């Protein structure tokens, strides 16, 4: 009897052993891949971050990214100007006004889910057919901004909705109890309380806009110049990098551009996490 128990203990559980090491190996691989991607770009790119890469004018020798960087700023600003009010107002309607489960809500939900699944190249193509050709805006900052605005709209709607839902109902009841109407309650009570969550969503949208390429090549064009007006063509940083990488003459500078792009996007995403984190801390008080 005792012998049998001992033998059983000695028998090694190969399956468990393999499974344990399998998951460890997979995690290690993911870990290594992420570190490699970041480390490789930084190591190759940082030495090329020279002042002439930020010259005021782009030439084919200095491949300055400054105009593209500034275009990215105006593109982001314009897109948000269009998308942020729309996204926030839609979410306000869904959370504060609409009856749960009404047909209108179902249709809106379906539409926003559909939008969030569409690949960016399809957005780009639609932007080209609609804004560039049908509206006759040509390759322009404005056409790009509208295309991107549609692209980030579902993201903004979803994050704002979550932020609004996390505002306790007692806030609303208190406001109604004091005699405020629905509109005043929304703007004075609910939106300020949800502001950090909404802001976190907006920052996430900025991250997507900054990193986007496919939706922009056929809407905003590839002009490596500072766009003076919304009707001018403008390459953003990601588009600029696509062209640099495609040409292949300035590999070092491409790495440097990649570094700036990574720092920008990761900084923006980190900021979003930080803002959202502050919100949850504030909520616990």
């Amino acid at each position: 009897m005792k012998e049998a128990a001992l033998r059983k203990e000695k028998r090694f559980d190969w399956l468990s052993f393999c499974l344990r090491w399998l998951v460890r190996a997979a995690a290690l691989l993911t870990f290594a891949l992420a570190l490699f991607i970041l480390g490789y770009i930084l190591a190759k790119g940082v030495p090329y971050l020279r002042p002439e890469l930020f010259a005021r004018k782009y030439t084919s020798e200095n491949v300055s990214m400054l105009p593209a960087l500034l275009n990215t700023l105006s593109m982001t600003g314009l897109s948000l100007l269009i998308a942020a009010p729309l996204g926030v107002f839609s979410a306000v309607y869904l959370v504060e006004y609409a009856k749960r489960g009404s047909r209108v809500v179902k249709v809106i939900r379906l539409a926003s889910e559909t939008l969030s699944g569409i690949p960016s190249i399809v957005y780009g193509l639609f932007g080209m057919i609609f804004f560039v050709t049908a509206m006759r805006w040509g390759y322009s900052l404005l056409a790009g901004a509208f295309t991107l605005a549609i692209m980030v709209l579902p993201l903004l709607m979803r994050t704002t909705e979550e932020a609004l839902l996390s505002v306790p109902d007692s806030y609303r009841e208190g406001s109604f109890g004091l005699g405020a109407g629905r509109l005043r309650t929304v703007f004075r009570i609910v939106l300020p309380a949800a502001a950090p969550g909404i802001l976190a969503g907006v920052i996430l949208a900025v991250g997507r806009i900054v990193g986007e390429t496919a939706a922009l090549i056929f809407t905003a064009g590839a002009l490596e110049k500072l766009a003076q007006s919304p009707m001018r063509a403008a390459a953003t940083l990601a588009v600029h990098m696509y062209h640099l990488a495609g040409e292949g003459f300035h590999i070092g500078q491409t790495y440097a551009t990649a570094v700036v792009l990574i720092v920008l996007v990761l900084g923006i995403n980190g900021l979003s996490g930080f803002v959202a984190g502050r919100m949850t801390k504030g909520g616990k008080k």
Partner: protein
Amino acid sequence: MRRIHSFLKQRKEAFARVVFLVAACVCVLCVALICIYLFASAIPAIAEIGPLKFLGGRAWHPGVGEFGILPMMVGSLYVTAGAVAFGVPVGLLTAIYLAKFAGKRVARALRPLIALMAGLPSIIYGFLGLVVLAPLLRNLLGSGKSILTASLLLGIMILPTIISVSESAIRAVPAQYYEGALALGASHERSVFFVTVPAAKSGIMAALVLGIGRAVGETMAVIMVAGNQAVLPEGILSGVRTLTANIVLEMGYATDLHREALIATAAVLFVFILLINFLLSLLKRRDVR
């Protein structure tokens, strides 16, 4: 006076309600516009080329009026399947590790890195694929830009999606399942793999479908590593062109029927994505039940 005031207030409330409703309907309008404008160009083009010739044609020679997108559909299919074959096992195992094996410290180090991978723009992945992965595979296997390269790169790109979605699915499984398995004498690993993970099946399926959606729609990274030959691939080491790449490569100079055929390519892609979304909503509905 008070009556006027309350009347105005009512009007204001009603007005605001309409404003919010209109804002909410914009996304419906966008979907409608996208459908209308895509299909308005796509359907006549497909009719002119002939649906069978368009969807089943093996030759894509816009210069002589041959518009068969079969090679591109097969290309998208292969590349996506390859991405899933690489990304899903690694992603799922990493998710299991994060949910059930990792210590707090390791998880705290790994999680930001996964968020980082999720946030990287696809152009960065594409560039890395071009300058690192493609030369590496060329030295090892003799062919740099191929289905294999694109699959590996896409597999890496869908990792964060797979990991985060399937991790939350695994975490959502009630702890009693795991504890019950332990109590019956199973080891930690066996309990996790044969009880907890199967119970998270529908969430993991959702992760798979989301990953497929991302891989099918990816453009800028694929275009830089796939080789982009518009012919049926002979093996996983031959170059291939995906539906998305077809659009980007030729849209810049296409005119007339060629242009419309490219828009029709996007429409086919759009239908693929709609099918994938439909599948996803089915999975979600089963989850709720």
